[in-house]
């Protein structure tokens, strides 16, 4: 039996090898507009977008031998000159003429990219608590003896304040969407989660036994006889009895990200730096102090080397504040520099047990290089310092203006 399988496999290999060989036997193809297309590509490469567009349009409209592929040049020229709506129109022209699946996929991606780029400046991210006025905050700080429940697509929220339950249910969906779609690059989360909002720290710790003493929130994931329970525990009010906006802006998305990652990684261990870095990224607003600290430590003597960060475990973290700042900085750097697909592949590779350098190189489909870890560390350190310096400069300018 095994012998038969072997022969089948050998036959399959021979056939596949023959098919590669057969592909080259056809007569060479010839394109009469190749010269004009090449000229347009040269102009595009040289940054002569208007000229490239004109030449490529002439090829698409040629009466003798129209070349619809040249719409890709028109579209790219418009996109690079930031004329996104016109670029989308050209990509659509290209899409309807493209016969290769890769080219069609490219056109679809670029249409999405142009649409995103056009909207990018219009909607800066904003923390949910910034939308609340003093009256709303006062209402949200009230606690009743009754427990109110509110449900949404993925969440069942329980709180001692109906407005809190409603608000948390809405913001939980927003945070989950951001985590799955933006941060984890298209991850699905078809599960239901219970969120308990405890009125204060005392009741929180009495009920959320898994949370560390200093924490104001936590998550739990347990399985009993096939029944999986996903739970997030939060605190409604701070020590002064005010509504804890930090719960809404940071703790909720942070803990939710841990929960999603727990589910995504399954039995595999998600490295601590990645787990915490992504959870910090999930928070509604960037905490500038972290960015500044990461840059300062990287530039100074307190730097924890990239390899140390990547291998850190909960029990051996040195200088937790620095570790968290640098983890955030590195993960944000990776997330920002890789495409969505590459980042998704990176997470998959980490899940399968690759080292960070190997996971990145595999996700980039590049040959492994010995110097890659050092190059990556250098690039991240440069990024961390630049980000920190930018914030310092901004703060200085603000002080001067005041």
């Amino acid at each position: 039996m095994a012998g038969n399988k072997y022969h089948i496999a050998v036959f399959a290999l021979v056939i596949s090898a023959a098919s590669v060989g057969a592909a080259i036997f056809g007569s060479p193809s010839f394109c009469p507009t190749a010269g004009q297309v090449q000229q347009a590509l040269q102009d595009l490469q040289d940054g002569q977008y208007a000229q490239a567009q004109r030449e490529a349009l002439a090829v698409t409209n040629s009466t003798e031998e129209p070349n619809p592929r040249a719409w890709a040049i028109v579209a790219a020229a418009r996109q690079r000159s930031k004329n996104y709506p016109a670029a989308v129109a050209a990509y659509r022209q290209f899409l309807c003429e493209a016969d290769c699946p890769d080219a069609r996929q490219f056109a679809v991606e670029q249409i999405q990219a142009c649409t995103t780029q056009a909207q990018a400046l219009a909607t800066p991210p904003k923390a949910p608590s910034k939308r609340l006025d003093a009256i709303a905050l006062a209402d949200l700080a009230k606690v009743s003896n009754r427990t109110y429940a509110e449900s949404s697509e993925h969440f069942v929220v329980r709180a001692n304040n109906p407005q809190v339950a409603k608000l948390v249910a809405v913001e939980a969906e927003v945070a989950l969407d951001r985590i799955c779609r933006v941060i984890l690059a298209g991850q699905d989360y078809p599960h239901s989660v219970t969120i308990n909002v405890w009125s204060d720290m005392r009741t929180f710790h009495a009920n959320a036994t898994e949370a560390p003493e200093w924490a104001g929130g936590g998550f739990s994931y347990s399985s009993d006889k096939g029944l999986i329970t996903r739970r997030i525990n939060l605190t409604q009010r701070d020590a002064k009895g005010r509504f804890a906006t930090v719960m809404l802006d940071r703790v909720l998305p942070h803990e939710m990200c841990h929960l999603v990652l727990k589910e995504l990684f399954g039995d595999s261990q998600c490295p601590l730096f990645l787990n915490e870095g992504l959870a910090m990224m999930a928070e509604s607003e960037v905490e500038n102090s972290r960015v500044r600290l990461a840059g300062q430590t990287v530039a100074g003597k307190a730097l924890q080397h990239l390899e140390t960060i990547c291998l850190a475990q909960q029990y051996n973290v040195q200088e937790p504040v620095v570790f968290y700042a640098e983890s955030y900085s590195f993960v944000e750097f990776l997330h920002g520099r890789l495409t969505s697909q590459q980042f998704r592949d990176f997470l998959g590779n980490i899940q399968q047990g690759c080292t960070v350098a190997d996971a990145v190189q595999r996700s980039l489909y590049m040959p492994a290089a010995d110097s890659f870890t050092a190059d990556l560390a250098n690039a991240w350190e440069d990024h961390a310092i630049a980000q920190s310096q930018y914030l310092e400069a901004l703060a200085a300018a603000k002080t001067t203006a005041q």
Partner: protein
Amino acid sequence: MVRAALSGCLIAALASVAAADKLVLTDGRVFVGTVSVEADTVQISVPYGDLRFPKIDVERIELMDTPEQEFRKKLADTALSDPNALYDLAQWAGSKSLSRQAGDLYGLILKLKPDHVGAHKALGHICIGKSWLGFDAALEQARGKLEAGSYAVLLEDILPALRAAAPTRQQALQVMYLLADTQLRSRQFNRAEASFGELAEAARKAKPPATDLATQSAMIAEILHANPDGMYILRDVYPPAAPLLGSAQAHIMPGPASLAMPLVLEAALRDEAKKEIEAGRKFLDEAQKLAPTDPDSANLKYALADQCFQRADAMIPNIARAHRVDIARRKIAAMRKDADADARDFDEQMAKLGVKDMAPQAYNTMLQRMIHHLNSTRDDLKRIIELAQAYPKELVLELKWAELDLTKIDNMRKILVTELDGRK
């Protein structure tokens, strides 16, 4: 001076000159070599050995000049200061398979007349600009001209000369690649497609076959066939690490670009390699699922995956190395499992020894069984070492463990074999 130089270089050749005799046998066979007559036999030394015939079988022996002797005579009659006369003699020597003497003469001619075209050509030199270069130097010069964009001179003069002068098949393939690449960079896409196709065929038929070159060239021909206008659409930045590492090196943005640019061609090859890796990874996943229940089918899937990764590596060297290491690692894990099972069986047998009384025959049988288990484990470990040695850096632990275990097994086996032999 000239005579001294010539005599110096030809002495070795002439010293070994021997008479070339023709031995004609009564049955009509003819041998050419050095004849020596003995008591009842005649011996002839031919290039492939010594032959001995009874005198009665010999019809006649003809003493003749060897080509070397003839060459010596001709050389004595040639004016050594006349390059053209030396050239004629060198050509004659070449026609008589006296290539070393011919080469010495061509060298001498070039000392007398450094621009002697015939001598240069005979030595396989190629004229680039105003200088004559040996093949390897000329090939390097041609590569430099390609980088400098001197396509016309390459296509019209240098590459045809290189192709004609290529001394070996492998070097001819290098010239063919250079030609196809030059055509591509000079935007002659249909010619480049044909040249890469021819190169793929030639590489496949070469002995030994240049498989990687054949795969890569065939793929380039396919890419050109699919993009006859020379426009390729990049879906990602290339090189892919450029956005991440912020390297200052040149990179190509996603979008349409010309295949005449080497980076764009590399990107196109990488896209194809990526498809092969994705296909290989699917086989790898299937193999992983099959491995616990059907190891034979899993091995076939591994073989298919390896084929995909090899093709990817042929297009972009080492792009799939990490995945090939994965295959080796998984195979090693499976072998380890087998070896561990054998080790457990061995331990069970070992535990029985000395616990109860045994008849000598039963004791011997048990020893044999234990040696059998050790042999099986040893075979597994040897296969692990063989696999891991291909990736010594990545599989250093697997390699070291297997080597250590193998030493232990060998020592244990030695003890058992000695015990068994002692009892026989």
